[in-house]
């Protein structure tokens, strides 16, 4: 209501420093090259190249060198409290060691010393355009950044995906900082850098820096409604019961249709023997991460989300 909007101006602390992380998965190349380019700009123009302090990080350098998703284990599952506090031995996976290093650099997770914002750069083979992935639906800073990016970026669809993990369960890199989100851009094959995808990701990073600068400088960002997709569940491929090998592929009518409306009776899979498997549930949901290469080994053909509206208050930086 108008009364609610007039009352709800939230004062939040300034964001002193942000981190841009690329190569958390070593074969997701846009982020690798965005970080590389930012580091080149910093070398050329000095620390003042951006209006706010920015730390650039290549999260998984060994995986980047080998152009693989990971060396021993998926780095983006290594930031739970348990993994971050586990003792390191000779047999510890490389990514666990590195996660603890990153926690020291950008954290400590949960402490007041943690960096203010992590922007973690990822690519997907799915046709997800620019998807901003948030662990929580109640962080006004990241939701305002999402709203800002949605207004400013028009070349591709910009969507907000909320995972709604309890904060204590979060295991991804962006849970190390006070505020965090993942910039997921696709479709791009792993091991490939496409200029159009790189440009979108670079623009999104630049706009994020821009928002923080404006926010820190006292701009009032008006509240309002942000459309978001809330993760509900994952769906696996049809598999042979004994060998667990795939017996079907994503149906051509579902392929590349991330965030479409999936209704009962819509095709999901086309088996190798020509049968169509349909969506049989009553609830209309939205599929995403449709045919992501890295998710075959996780038993995920696609995931489903429910569309919802999040109402966010106006925000302004708190002056000391």
């Amino acid at each position, binding site marked *: 209501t108008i009364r609610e909007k007039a009352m709800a101006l939230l004062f939040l602390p300034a964001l002193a420093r942000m981190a841009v992380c690329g190569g958390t998965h070593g074969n997701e190349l846009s982020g690798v090259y965005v970080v590389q380019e930012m580091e080149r700009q910093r070398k050329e123009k000095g620390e003042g190249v951006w209006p706010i302090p920015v730390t650039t990080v290549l999260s998984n350098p060994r995986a980047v060198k080998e*152009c693989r998703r990971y060396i021993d284990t998926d780095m983006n599952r290594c930031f739970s409290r348990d993994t971050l506090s586990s003792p390191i031995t000779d047999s510890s996976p490389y990514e666990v060691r590195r996660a603890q290093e990153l926690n020291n650099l950008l954290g400590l997770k949960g402490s007041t010393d943690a960096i203010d914002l992590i922007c973690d750069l990822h690519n997907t083979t799915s046709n997800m355009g620019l998807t901003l992935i948030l662990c929580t639906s109640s962080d006004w800073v990241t939701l305002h950044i999402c709203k800002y990016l949605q207004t400013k970026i028009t070349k591709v669809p910009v969507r907000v995906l909320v995972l709604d993990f309890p904060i204590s369960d979060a295991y991804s890199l962006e849970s190390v900082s006070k505020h965090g989100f993942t910039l997921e851009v696709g479709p791009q094959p*792993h*091991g*490939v850098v496409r*200029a159009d995808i790189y440009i979108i990701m670079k623009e999104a990073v630049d706009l994020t820096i821009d928002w923080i600068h404006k926010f820190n400088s006292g701009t009032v960002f008006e509240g309002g409604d942000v459309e978001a997709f809330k993760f509900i569940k994952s769906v696996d491929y049809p598999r042979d019961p004994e060998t667990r090998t795939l017996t079907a592929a994503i149906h051509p009518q579902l392929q590349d249709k991330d965030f479409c409306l999936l209704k009962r009776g819509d095709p999901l899979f086309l088996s190798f023997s020509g049968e169509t498997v349909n969506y049989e549930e009553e609830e209309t949901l939205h599929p995403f991460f449709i045919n992501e290469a890295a998710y*075959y080994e996780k038993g995920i053909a696609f995931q489903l989300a429910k569309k919802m509206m999040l109402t966010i208050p106006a925000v302004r930086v708190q002056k000391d």
Partner: protein
Amino acid sequence: MSSRTNISCLQEAARVAIFGGTHGNEMSGITLVNMWIQNSAEIERNGLLIKPFISNPRAVEKCSRYIDTDLNRAFTPENLSAPDVEGLPYEVQRAKEINRMFGPKGSADAYDVIFDLHNTTSNMGSTLILESSTDLFNLQMVHYIKKAMAPHTCSVLLNEHPQLKYSTTRSVAKHPVGLEVGPQPQGVLRSNVFESMRTILKHALDFIELFNSGVTFPPCTVDVFRVQERMDYPRDTNGNITAMVHPHLQDCDWEPLNRGDPMFLTFDGRTVLYEGANTVYPTFINEAAYYEKQQAFMTTGREILAANAIRKACK
């Protein structure tokens, strides 16, 4: 040239192999071959021995292109004659084994035809790859396939270049044919790509069955793209790429590239133009596996190859 009496009599193609998983993350071929190993009904043809085969099982298991070295470059004379010692790269051992099973390469005992199934991240559509401009059997086969697939386009890539030609897995056979279908990311199975590859093979096997049954195929011509040059990315002194395939070139496989056309875009936004004197037809544009082989794309020239009529030789 009169073609009324000019019919080349060729040996029957009795033994055919279909290789999937030469690269362990190119999923269409892996899926098709595994399916056909379980149930070969779809690929059976009269009088024909057809063997579906996973060429690099360890790489398939790992879903990676290769274990130690690229199998599809491993069929060199040096590798094939290397003694059986410990410490040979996995793919060299595998190449020797494949040469024993389906070769020996260059001998009369080699398999007649090997179809090697590949995917690419490049927007090449359905592509057939030939290694010789004078293999009449292969020319007639690709002509048949192209006609059968129409209006779906099948491009033909000819790699007969003395330096750029490489020792492929399929080169063990008398008539090697590469099937390359894209775009498809590594590790991903796209239904449309899978079905295209399946259909190409169906027509190929139909051709072989017809040929073996004694059908005469009249003279024909085949439009091909002949490999000319490999173009690398601009790189810095450390070997890192400093630019990406330009958005105007990305996904434009088989389309003409002229002098002055955009070719690369640097990470800080500068355009690098194509400076070659002649129009070329790029292919394998932005293939993931070729970054490490120093290749952003390959240039080709258009050519029309002529093939005599062919018929199975009478015994």
